[in-house]
C-alpha cells in the first residue's frame, strides 16, 4: 500500500512526500529493496532525500522505544535459524539458491545479476507505474525472507504484462498462469518439487524485466525523468 501511495505521490509531482511514504515500507523493509534502487536509478534525488530523512526519524524512534541495545538484540533474532526455517519454500533467490551447490555463493551471484538487471530496467523505463511494478517484483526476489503471501507484490507486474500491447503472447500466458493459485501450490505444497514453482515465479520476473531491457524504445519516447 505504501509503495502504491509513494508512486502516486511521485506521479503527482510530490517527490519529498513520496520519499516519506516509501519510508513507511520499513514495516517490511526486506521486501522493499527495489524502491531505493528505483529512486537512485531514475535520479529522483528529492524523493531519496525525503525517504532518507523519514528513515532516519523512524530509526531514531526505534532507539527511543527499545533503548540503545536493540540493534544487537535484533541482529541475534535475524541470525537465529528458527527465524527463517523454510528457505526451500521461499519464492525468491534464496529459495532457488537453496537447491544449488554452495547456496550462499549462488545467492550472492544471482542477487548481483538481478540487481544489475533491475537497474538497467529502471534506467530504461519511462512509465512510472511499470518501473514501480518492476521494483516491487525485484525486491521480492532480492529479499532474504519471504513466503507465499509476499508474492502479492508480483500483482502489478503481472497486470502490466497482461495489459500492455506488444508483449509476447507467451509472456502474457505466463503472467496469467501466475495469477492463478497453481505456482503457489507448487511452491508450498508439493514436497521436493518447490524448485519448479520458484523457477516459475523468479523466471517470470527475470523474463519480464529482460524483455523491457531488450525491447527497442520508440523514437521520441523520452528517457525516465525525475518527478
Amino acid at each position, binding site marked *: 500500500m505504501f509503495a502504491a501511495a509513494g508512486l502516486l505521490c511521485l506521479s503527482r509531482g510530490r517527490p519529498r512526500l513520496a520519499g516519506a511514504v516509501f519510508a513507511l515500507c520499513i514495516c517490511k523493509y526486506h521486501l522493499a529493496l527495489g524502491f531505493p534502487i528505483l529512486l537512485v536509478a531514475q535520479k529522483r534525488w528529492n524523493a531519496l532525500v525525503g525517504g532518507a530523512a523519514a528513515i532516519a526519524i523512524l530509526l531514531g524512534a526505534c532507539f527511543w522505544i527499545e533503548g540503545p541495545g536493540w540493534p544487537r538484540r535484533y541482529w541475534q533474532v535475524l541470525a537465529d535459524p528458527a527465524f527463517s526455517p523454510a528457505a526451500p519454500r521461499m519464492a525468491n533467490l534464496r529459495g532457488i539458491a537453496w537447491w544449488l551447490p554452495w547456496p550462499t555463493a549462488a545467492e550472492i551471484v544471482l542477487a548481483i545479476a538481478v540487481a544489475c538487471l533491475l537497474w538497467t530496467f529502471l534506467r530504461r523505463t519511462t512509465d512510472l507505474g511499470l518501473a514501480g511494478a518492476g521494483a516491487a517484483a525485484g525486491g521480492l526476489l532480492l529479499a532474504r525472507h519471504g513466503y507465499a503471501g509476499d508474492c502479492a507484490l508480483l500483482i502489478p507486474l503481472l497486470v502490466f504484462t497482461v495489459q500492455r500491447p506488444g508483449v509476447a503472447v507467451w509472456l502474457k500466458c505466463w503472467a496469467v498462469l501466475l*495469477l492463478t493459485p497453481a505456482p503457489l501450490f507448487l511452491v508450498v505444497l508439493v514436497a521436493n518439487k518447490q524448485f519448479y514453482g520458484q523457477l516459475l515465479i523468479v523466471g517470470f520476473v527475470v523474463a519480464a524485466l529482460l524483455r523491457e531491457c531488450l525491447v527497442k524504445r520508440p523514437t521520441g519516447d523520452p528517457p525516465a525523468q525525475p518527478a
Partner: protein
Amino acid sequence: MQMASSSLTTARARTVLAVFACAIGLAEYLWIAANSSGFGVDFNQFYSASRLAGTGRLYDWDALRKIEAEHGPPVHTGRLPVVAFGVKLVGWMPYSTAHAVWVACGMVSFLVFALAWPGLNRPLMAVAVCWSAPAAVLFWGWVRIPRCG
C-alpha cells in the same frame, strides 16, 4: 452514433466479465478461508510484540513466546521496534476485536494498492487481486491440504 453504442456495449460486456471473474476469485478466497490452518498466526505475532514494544524486551524470545501462546503457536518476530510500537494502535483492544480491525485495515490497504498504483488497468487489477492466492494467504493463512509427494 452506432460506433458509440457499440463501444458502450463492449465496455459493459467487459465490466460484466470483470465482475464475474472477481466473483470466481472471491469464491477461491472463501474456500481458502474455510480451509485455513494458519489464520491469524502473523497477527498474533504483531499483537504480542506490540505488548513488549517499549519495555526493552521486544526481542526476548521467552517473553514473546509466553504472550503469543495465549492465542496460537508462537513464532519469532522480525519487526523493527517502531513497527511493533505502531501496532499498539490496536494492541490495547481485546484480541478478537483487534484482529478484526487488522483484517479490515488489510483489506483497505489492498484496495488502496489496487486503486493507487499508477497506470494499471483498474478492472484487470481488481480481477488480479480477487484471484491472487498470495493475497488470500495474507488474510487467511495457508490451506489445510495434505502435502503431496
